């Protein structure tokens, strides 16, 4: 049942115009998403290619963003790193949100002992700081790309679960859910068609925010040398491997860190514009 379809003019609020900062944010996000998809194929050099003798070269016409500690073209390194930084974080946060949302819907729709059980497990996971949990998982299982995705998912699922459950508990007390129950609809139908459409907006805003945290978490792990392993490199590992160039003021250190910063700030601006300035204050 979609009441907005029956009475479109009365239900729909006038669409607020996108602010300038919001538009900038959306543009940055769109740019990086595009780069994550096509970056490696438009990079001027291969992932490990073009080892010149110019180490930590400054920005020039030949090397737009300078060269790294082995004399490789920094622009190509960043473009090849984009799928790792953005793709892994995106996959991880998608997994986290999907599982968190499904568990929250199950918990809220069923109630009782299932709700209690899931909530207690999530409360325990939330009591372990994210970076710490990630370190423990990497210590136990090593770090490969699939494992990093799972790590990110485990670290951020409890937070998603908490928010989704709070929303779902409110929604499932609504009359239309009660009437669906009385009609004898199945649990799956109620979760998917009655509850989910009424909570997707805050869930999406939460998704964006969590994507930012995941990017920061994963690049932090890579920076410590515990994330994406050579020969592949995400932006965090690029900062790590070029850190000795810091004393030379080489762009190779700062540029990947700036790439992360533009991505996360862009997502933040976009969320702010889309969710009307209402957002949560902290990570959790």
């Amino acid at each position, binding site marked *: 049942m979609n009441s907005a379809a029956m009475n479109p003019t009365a239900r729909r609020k006038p669409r607020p115009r996108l602010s300038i900062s919001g538009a900038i944010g959306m543009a940055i996000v769109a740019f990086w998403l595009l780069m994550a998809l096509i970056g490696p194929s438009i990079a001027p050099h291969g992932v490990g290619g073009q080892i010149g003798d110019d180490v930590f070269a400054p920005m020039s016409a030949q090397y737009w963003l300078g060269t790294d500690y082995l004399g490789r073209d920094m622009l190509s390194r960043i473009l090849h790193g984009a799928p790792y930084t953005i793709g892994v974080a995106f996959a991880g946060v998608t997994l986290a949100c999907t599982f968190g949302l499904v568990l929250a819907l199950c918990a809220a729709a069923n109630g009782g002992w299932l709700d209690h059980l899931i909530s*207690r497990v999530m*409360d*325990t*996971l939330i*009591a*372990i*700081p*994210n*970076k*710490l949990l990630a*370190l*423990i*998982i*990497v*210590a*136990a*299982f090593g770090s490969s790309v699939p494992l990093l995705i799972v790590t990110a998912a485990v670290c951020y699922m409890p937070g998603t679960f908490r928010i989704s459950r709070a929303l779902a508990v409110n929604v499932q007390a609504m009359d239309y859910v009660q009437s669906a129950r009385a009609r004898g609809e199945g649990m799956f139908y109620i979760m998917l068609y009655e509850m989910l459409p009424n909570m997707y907006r805050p869930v999406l805003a939460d998704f964006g925010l969590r994507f*930012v945290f995941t990017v*920061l978490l994963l*690049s*932090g792990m890579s*920076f*410590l*040398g*515990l994330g994406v392993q050579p020969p592949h490199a995400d932006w*965090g590992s690029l*900062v790590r491997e070029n*850190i000795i160039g*810091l*004393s030379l*003021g080489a762009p190779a*250190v*700062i540029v990947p*860190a*700036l790439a*992360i*910063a533009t991505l*996360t*700030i862009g*997502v*933040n601006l976009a969320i*702010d514009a889309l969710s009307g300035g209402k957002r949560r*204050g*902290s*990570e*959790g």
Partner: protein
Amino acid sequence: MNGTTARLIVNRLGSGVVTLLAVSIVIFTITNLLPGDAAQALLGQESTPELLAALREKFGLDQPAHVRYLQWLGGMLSGNPGHALVNDLPVAELIGGRLPNSLMLAAVTTAVSVPLALAIGISSAMYRGSLYDRTVNAATVWTVSVPEFLIATVAVLVFAVKLRWLSALSRTEDIETVGQFLRVYAMPVLTLCCVIVAQMARMTRAAVIDQLNSSYIEMARLKGVRPIRMVLTHALPNAVGPIANAVALSLSYLIGGVIIVESIFNYPGIASLMVDSVTMRDMPVVQACAMLFCVGYLVLLTLADLFAILSNPRLRK
């Protein structure tokens, strides 16, 4: 203190202990899920079935998982979390040597960041919507969404490379004067403060604004109370609980932040010990450090809740 307050406090402390136990189970399970064990890791190529069995017996690895968990937990509680695999030193000794350094870093960061964040948060709530408030808002969002290592590398670039005021590495052993103390701690503390102050200020602002929107503040405003007095004597006492929560949550962010900051500046603390142990897969050290961080985190959260209970005027006699 009356009966209700006491009961709330006991409840909160109890649930803190239960959570800590659950956390220890999670940490133990994750670190023991893989089929390979410490004996195998230690022997590596030279393992024979006999050696493996002997070493397993020595470590107690032939016991079932729940027995090992209880032994491990007992060891943790009695202050003897075992020996490091890499150099066979007692874990307690490794941690003991570095804990004061980490606590010192945390203490200095707290002393700098809390007053600063409260001042920024409260003042931006007072002048809500002004240019100052919007600037603070934008600055805090940007700081929170930038990786710590960017702030740290920029700080090194500016203060150590360009200006040559500070050294890029923190060596705690050669601190003798106040000047040296400042030089060693300036950059790690600056980096940690950036992010913590931003988070804390945001949450403080939200807590104060929440109170400023209530009707008793409107009443005070209609009475003609001056803005400063309105915030300090009317709104603030009621916002103490949420603010304590904000402070505790942000300080617990220290735990994530120090992991990066200690490794960048090569600061000899617990977090860099843990990162090294993760790299070398030295499980006993990883487990002990992880438990230590979780205890710290839970203590902070519990303290904040207790503070909120005690500051609630309805529960006061």
